[in-house]
């Protein structure tokens, strides 16, 4: 406290009530979730909710689906984001317009709107995607995009890549612009071709940004709910049921609030662990 100056002290006093309120709310919600997860419907202490999580075959399936969903979405978003960022980094004229149109637009579209829009684009009676593909002679017959488990998963991943690549692109673009141009100039004089310049300058320089983006998008994608829910509702079968859609279903559809709480705590631990691994490797990187 003694290190704070007067202005800082009064500022602290001003924000303190809100900080306390927010923290209390956070602690209360977390606490009540923990409490719920260890009790049964009558409020008795039990571990049954957690045991159910390990015996319920659907949970295993959703875990697997979540891994596919996250790996597919994140790798797609990062690669496409990097590609677009590299392209945008080249052009200097009209960059703001390009950035706002290409990068912000999909990201700014509301989740529900994006979900409904993709659902209609994939439609196998009227869908624009099928129509365009047929007219381009790429496919001969309409593809029922959301009608089988694997196709549905692929389709929601494609939609999610579209929805999320913008954010990675923005991060990468910001990272690219911090790389000093002299590095490239020096390399060019030394005779490095453009691929080599990318590999030996851009990638290492961008690594911290890539790691942070990878961590954030991974966590966001695990927790991302609206797109799947509006497009497939977790179906067909359990084809696109991820842990979060299942948690929602357990709580709001089946009213098994205690099990829902326990599964979300399990998810919390998983995410915590992933974040921990990332942060540790980022910290190591910085220490070097």
């Amino acid at each position: 406290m003694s290190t704070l100056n007067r202005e800082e002290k009064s500022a602290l006093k001003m924000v303190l009530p809100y900080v306390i309120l927010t923290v209390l709310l956070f602690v209360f919600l977390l606490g009540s979730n923990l409490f719920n997860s260890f009790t049964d419907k009558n409020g008795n202490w039990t571990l049954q909710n957690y045991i159910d999580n390990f015996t319920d075959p659907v949970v295993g399936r959703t875990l697997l689906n979540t891994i596919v969903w996250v790996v597919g979405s994140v790798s797609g978003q990062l690669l496409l984001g990097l590609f677009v960022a590299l392209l945008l980094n080249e052009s200097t004229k009209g960059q703001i317009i390009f950035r706002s149109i290409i990068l912000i637009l999909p990201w700014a579209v509301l989740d529900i709107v994006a979900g409904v829009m993709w659902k209609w684009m994939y439609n196998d009676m009227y869908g624009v995607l099928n129509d365009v593909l047929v007219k381009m002679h790429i496919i001969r017959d309409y593809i029922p995009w959301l009608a089988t488990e694997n196709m549905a998963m692929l389709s929601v991943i494609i939609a999610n890549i579209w929805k999320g690549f913008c954010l990675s692109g923005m991060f990468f673009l910001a990272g690219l612009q911090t790389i000093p141009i002299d590095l490239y100039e020096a390399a060019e004089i030394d005779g490095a071709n453009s691929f080599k310049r990318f590999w030996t300058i851009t990638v290492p320089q961008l690594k911290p940004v890539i790691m942070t983006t990878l961590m954030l998008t991974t966590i966001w994608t695990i927790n991302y709910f609206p797109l799947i829910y509006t497009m497939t509702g977790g179906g067909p079968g359990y084809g696109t049921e991820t842990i979060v859609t299942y948690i929602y279903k357990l709580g709001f559809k089946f009213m098994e609030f205690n099990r829902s709480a326990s599964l979300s705590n399990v998810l919390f631990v998983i995410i915590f662990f992933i974040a921990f691994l990332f942060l540790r490797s980022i910290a190591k990187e910085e220490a070097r």
Partner: protein
Amino acid sequence: MRRSSLLVLLMLVVLAIAGVSQTINIWIGGQVAELDETWDMIIGKFEKETGQKVEVQLFGFDIYYDKLLTALQAGQGPDLAFADLGGWVPTFAEKGWLEPMGALLDSWDGVEQIWPNLWPTVIYNGERYGLPWYTDCRLLLYNQTMFDSAGLDRNDPPETWEELVYQATKLTDASKRVYGYGVSGTKTEHTSLAFIIFLYGAGGQLLTDDYSAAAFNTPEGLRALKFYTDLALTYGVSPNAVTYNEDDYRNMMAQNRVAMAIGGPWSFPLIETANPAIVNNYTVSLHPYGSTPASVLGGWALVIPSVSKNKENAWELAKYLTSFETWMTWIEAKGGPMPTRKDVCYAAPVLQDSKWQVIFETFPFAVSRPPIPQYPQVSEQIQIMIQNVLLGNATPEEAIKTAEANVNAILAK
């Protein structure tokens, strides 16, 4: 001076809050927002007659369940609310969220006018917890223009499953993406409802009479499951079933793409909005059946949450809304939905139209979904069973056996 004006302000605020708590809050779900004006008119009349203030909130169906559930779970909520007859009332009653209504209903003279097959939907542990307000039952909705162009008689829809296959095959032209019958196969309630119609139409039953175990793994149940999925798989008369349900098919029907699907009285305004030219070129009939006529009923009941501080007035409003006069005014203004009062069904001039007569004839055949708190989970197992067959993950025999085991496990908990 400043202090006294502050005091006055404070008093005003307190008065305003006290005034607000005297109003009756009613939540209406499942009704599209366009009905707002009719609600204003009906409620306005009540306010004028009784001097009570009523605050109406309308919700779309998609969000209403979550909204109501969250409020009730948090110990809040309106004084009077709509609850879906598909199992909401017993589910909420089990949690202790609803006020028992038996004594109130006994003191009311309208009880015998309510269609008798509606009461099981609002009973939990022998006590009534809701007053059914409007209802409907599922029928076969079909496009008569498409019947004409396929060379079928527009006034002779299929009555049996054999006729259904025959006519649907004639109506289907898969190369033009035109189909005879829409099989609902999405992971939504529509799929369970459709299966229930086929199951009871084959003479089967979903659960035992005391709702303690599954009763659909019988030769009748298997026949229903096979026939229902065969419509899509073997006969190929349906668009890709796992991606669509009756709501989608209704829209396709408006565009002459699907000739028959399950629908009901609520479909009339919706299909006419989708294509105004379809008026007089679509109608309803009893859904084709295997051995016995069958239908599922649905609808909404008025319930009083136990947290309400204004229960007496809420009950007055419920009685007013369910009175003969209010319903007659409503029907005159909107033409639907189907009232839960028999006297209104028979008296309202608008309801004497032939489509409505089909509905009133079918209604006594309509069964309700099991009014038990576990129904949503049972329903999901039915949806999974149908999807597994449609996706080729399991044979009908395997799927029905798995579903039976899962439903029994759910009910045993």
